[in-house]
């Protein structure tokens, strides 16, 4: 147990150090020599950091790519799931038979708080990205405030989930098999899939949400207060947006799986119980 905690602290420290290393760059005036071109070159470095390297890249990504990629993610991912729902359909399990206690009350409360704040983060984040669609102004400004408050709320359950489920979320050999058959979701047959308490998909989402969430929280904190040199802020903003793409994709997947793809599976996060029928198929390696 102690070992697990120290590894968490170690990861947090690594993230912090990586951040301060970036902040150490820049701020080098140097003697002005040579032509006026050299002079302007030095001057611009003092004013706006290494614009050629990071400012230009940020401008390109933010003006051309981020919103387009996000648009593709929030349309294509649900479209694929709609097709899945129509062609293959939801998996149904016998909810009247034997039940297995799967999530403790503590886990459920933590997950519930995380779910609300994380959903708000995704929604307000997307609102900011598509701000021009809503016309900007007060509504998007409010979305930014909600984004910040939700991030602060998510921090605690995010950390608790990380510690609580870390052992079960570590990658295992059978996860590769799970990925190869895509968790059996492409077939209507109920064949036991190789997964213990959490399947490979859940594990990927877990790492995106906790470790990725930690990176999002730290970069977001720096972006919010401009707490570093402009080059660092540029890098963090690009990181924040790029990671956000993956997180939104997995968030949509998680919502589809829990609400639609496995009928009634949302109940287990409310009551704590999963039908034995469901566990034997979808979490066949789980020992109860």
């Amino acid at each position, binding site marked *: 147990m102690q070992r697990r905690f120290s590894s968490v602290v170690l990861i947090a420290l690594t993230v912090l150090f990586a951040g301060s290393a970036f902040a150490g760059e820049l701020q080098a*005036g140097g003697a002005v020599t040579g032509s006026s071109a050299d002079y302007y070159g030095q001057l611009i470095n003092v004013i706006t950091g290494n614009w050629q390297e990071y400012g230009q890249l940020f401008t390109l990504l933010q*003006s051309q790519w981020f919103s387009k990629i996000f648009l593709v993610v929030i349309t294509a991912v649900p479209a694929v799931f709609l097709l899945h729902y129509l062609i293959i359909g939801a998996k149904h399990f016998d909810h009247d038979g034997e039940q297995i206690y799967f999530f403790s009350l503590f886990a459920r409360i933590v997950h519930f708080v995380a779910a609300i704040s994380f959903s708000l983060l995704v929604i307000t984040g997307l609102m900011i990205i598509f701000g*021009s669609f809503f016309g900007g102004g007060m509504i998007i400004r409010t979305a930014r405030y909600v984004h910040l408050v939700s991030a602060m709320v998510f921090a605690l359950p995010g950390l608790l989930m990380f510690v609580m489920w870390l052992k079960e979320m570590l990658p295992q050999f059978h996860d590769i098999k799970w990925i190869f058959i895509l968790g059996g979701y492409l077939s209507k047959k109920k064949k036991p899939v190789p997964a213990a308490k959490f399947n490979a998909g859940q594990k990927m989402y877990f790492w995106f949400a906790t470790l990725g969430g930690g990176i999002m929280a730290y970069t977001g904190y720096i972006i919010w207060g401009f707490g570093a040199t402009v080059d660092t802020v540029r890098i963090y903003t690009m990181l924040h947006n790029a990671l956000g793409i993956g997180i939104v994709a997995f968030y949509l997947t998680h919502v589809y799986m829990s609400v639609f793809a496995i009928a009634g599976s949302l109940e287990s996060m409310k009551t704590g119980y999963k039908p034995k029928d469901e566990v034997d198929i979808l979490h066949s390696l789980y020992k109860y």
Partner: protein
Amino acid sequence: MARLKFLCDTERCIDCSGCVVACKEGNHVPVGVNRRRVITLDSGKPGEKSISVSCMHCADAPCIAVCPVDAIYQRDDGVVLVNKKTCIGCGYCFMACPFGAPQFPKGEVFGARGAMDKCTFCAGGPEETFSAEEKHLYGQNRIAEGKVPLCAGMCATKALLAGDADVVADVYRERVFQRGSGSNAWGWSKAYDKK
């Protein structure tokens, strides 16, 4: 229509910061915001040079490209302006700007940045010209009055030029010619100047 541009002659700028004060005072710029500032390199050493920097009102301005709420726009005369009622204070324009022009007042809720404030070329804002609201949000509209921006108007050494790009360029070309500043070609000063 004429294209409006700024030009700061570094051979003439003496770091008096008169342009900064004139702008801040004349436009009632929010606390913590300077639309213009003077930057000095090699202060106190031989070859010290200063330049007054603000928004350059770029053609193909990166701030306009990155704004997620389309709050920034460009007039036909090249002046880039922000609509403070649309701006959400995300700061992307600051990250995209090659001149560090966009500024943000502090003191909003949760320490958030307020609406972006930057040089308007003394051309007011999107509100009705000469209205009280325009003056309150964006400062004077001297362009509509037929005057040059405050900073350039009061510059004691006439280092800072503002106005029709063709006229500004002519004035500067004349100065460079009279000064005989050398070729300014890349590498010449390093290669041929005798120490």
